[in-house]
């Protein structure tokens, strides 16, 4: 159906404009017209057109080339055909350099125009098909609500399917924004407990006493304000799953209580005397380095081993760059629909900006960035300029050489940070820092630096 394709004819001469538009309509295209460059730019803001026929010479300030440049700023892949009555080599070169798809001299043979239109539309159809195929491909990389084709993530998908049918405790570790809760939900909803409750507790957000009551419930009169008996999250999660997020932040007392639940599968309500049995899968998550917290005496080693039966380490987004295009397509599709915006694509330039960004806030930050870009986007394609805020942010957060440390302290910080990044890999760390391994070992030993 050619009527799906919207074309635009831009010419100050009414006869020229309307006769070409009528001729194209006879072929089934939907054709809009604009009497000047400014009018064309305004119309292009509202929607993109498959082909723009733009007259080279138009009075009123904005000529054909300028009109094309403005349109291409909004729609970088726009197919613009520059039309002129007087061909010169100079104008042809300028037009093509500025991105015109074709440069034609009127009057031209009708067959020539038909072939030109068919050729451009064919390419557009292929592009549209490509977008659809990419969307299909994205679906292929979706597991529950998680999208990835990264080998480490695919291993995680496999592991999720394995543990979903077990009652084993799972510890999910990953930086903030990597999707720890999504993994926990995927485990729950892939297994036999899918129809049972999935209870989520954000441990880091609550004070110790409040969290205790939240997890285990309380009896009437257990503390001031406890006017009635209340079931805790563990009881609510019976036969289902309890997801303990930000577990690395809980107090020593609660660590002991939790250890007891994991060992005995029983607990007492706050202020209660009768033991309550619970049958729930426990999934814990943290963005903290728990072995480091153990060394610092902030986290119980026995609790760590109780939790760490199955460990899932989610790679940060910067280590799974291949997922960025898939995630971006997914976010555009979902967010544009939610916001009722006609954004459907991202330009190559904009995608490069996203691929080059380090994403300290991981997938959540990427999602927020796409959302912000969609809100401010003018056309149906997200452009590099729609993501300019990322560059500003990076500039603000740029690392600067500290001027109040000794050289030893700076060296130690550099070694510790690089070891963290390489997960304690001595060979890789030595390579990055440009020293041999024995020097690195000496330094670690001498200054008692953490290996992981």
């Amino acid at each position, binding site marked *: 159906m*050619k009527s799906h394709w919207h074309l635009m004819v831009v010419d100050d001469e009414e*006869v020229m404009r309307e*006769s*070409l538009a009528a*001729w194209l309509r*006879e*072929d089934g295209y939907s054709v809009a017209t604009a009497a000047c460059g400014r009018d064309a730019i305004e119309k292009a803001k509202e929607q993109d057109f498959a082909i723009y026929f733009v007259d080279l010479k138009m009075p009123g300030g904005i000529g054909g080339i300028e009109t094309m440049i403005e349109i291409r700023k909004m729609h970088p892949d726009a197919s613009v055909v520059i039309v002129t009555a007087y061909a010169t080599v100079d104008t042809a070169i300028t037009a093509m350099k500025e991105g015109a798809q074709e440069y034609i001299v009127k009057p031209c043979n*009708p067959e020539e125009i038909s072939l030109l239109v068919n050729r451009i539309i064919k390419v557009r159809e292929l592009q549209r098909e490509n977008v659809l195929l990419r969307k299909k491909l994205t679906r292929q990389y979706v597991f529950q609500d998680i999208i990835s084709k990264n080998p480490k993530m695919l291993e995680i998908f496999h592991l999720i399917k394995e543990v979903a049918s077990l009652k084993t405790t799972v510890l999910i570790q990953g930086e903030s924004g990597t999707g720890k809760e999504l993994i926990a939900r995927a485990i729950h909803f892939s297994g036999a407990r899918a129809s049972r409750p999935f209870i989520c507790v954000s441990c880091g957000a609550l004070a110790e006493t409040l969290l205790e009551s939240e997890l285990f419930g309380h009896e009437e009169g257990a503390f001031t304000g406890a006017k009635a008996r209340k079931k805790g999250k563990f009881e609510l999660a019976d036969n289902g799953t309890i997801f303990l997020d930000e577990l690395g932040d809980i107090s020593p007392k609660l660590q002991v209580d939790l250890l007891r639940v994991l060992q005995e599968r029983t607990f007492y309500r706050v202020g209660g005397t009768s033991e309550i049995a619970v049958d729930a899968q426990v999934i814990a998550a943290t963005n903290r380095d728990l072995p480091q917290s153990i060394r610092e005496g902030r986290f119980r080693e026995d609790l760590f081993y109780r939790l760490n039966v199955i460990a899932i380490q989610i790679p940060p987004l910067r280590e799974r760059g291949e997922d960025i295009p898939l995630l971006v397509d997914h976010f555009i599709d979902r967010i544009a629909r939610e916001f009722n915006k006609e954004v459907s694509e991202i330009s190559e330039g904009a995608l490069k900006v996203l691929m080059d960004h380090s994403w300290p806030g991981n997938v959540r930050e990427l999602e927020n960035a796409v959302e912000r870009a969609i809100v401010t986007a003018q056309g149906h394609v997200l452009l590099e300029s729609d993501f300019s805020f990322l560059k500003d942010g990076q500039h603000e957060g740029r690392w600067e050489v500290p001027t109040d440390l000794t050289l030893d302290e700076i060296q130690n910080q550099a070694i510790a940070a690089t070891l963290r990044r390489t997960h304690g890999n001595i060979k890789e760390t030595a390579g990055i820092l440009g020293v041999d391994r024995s020097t690195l070992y000496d330094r670690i030993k001498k200054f008692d630096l953490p290996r992981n």
Partner: protein
Amino acid sequence: MRTVYVAPIGEVEETVVDVVALALWSTFGLPVKRFPSLPDPAAALDAARQQYSSSAILRDLQLYCPEDPVKFVGITERDLFIPMLSFVFGQAQVGGPLALVSCARLRQEYYGLPPDPALLYSRVAKEGIHEIGHTFGMVHCSDAACPMALSNTIAQVDRKRGGLCDSCAALVHEITGKEML
């Protein structure tokens, strides 16, 4: 009932007008009437191109067009153009009342060949159906042998059959709400 009027513009062979009228009647199943000859479109001449602006002739045709509901097709011997293109065989208002067909490039003489009246009648009948089809809102057909197919060359005109393809015929039936004759 909707009527189709066929109007010769300037000097046009009688048989050509009759052939177009017959083709339209048999294709669209509507009453077809011959309209009195209209003056030669001298004002539409572009001296530099030595061709006639089809947009200008259509505009003039509007002045003679009877009250709705009608379709009004003008037939001329003049060679037509629109500014963007070197020529057009005809022009129509998609979904409007007016259409125009030129015989100039449908004649064998234009291509340096001896006259062939039968071939001319066959071509002008097909182009008449094509342009009136546009006025009924129909667009180009992908079947190259259907009169509603796009024709940019005389070879493409000759590739067409005299009658509409099944899907275009069904569309006409739906639009006119009449039994096909």
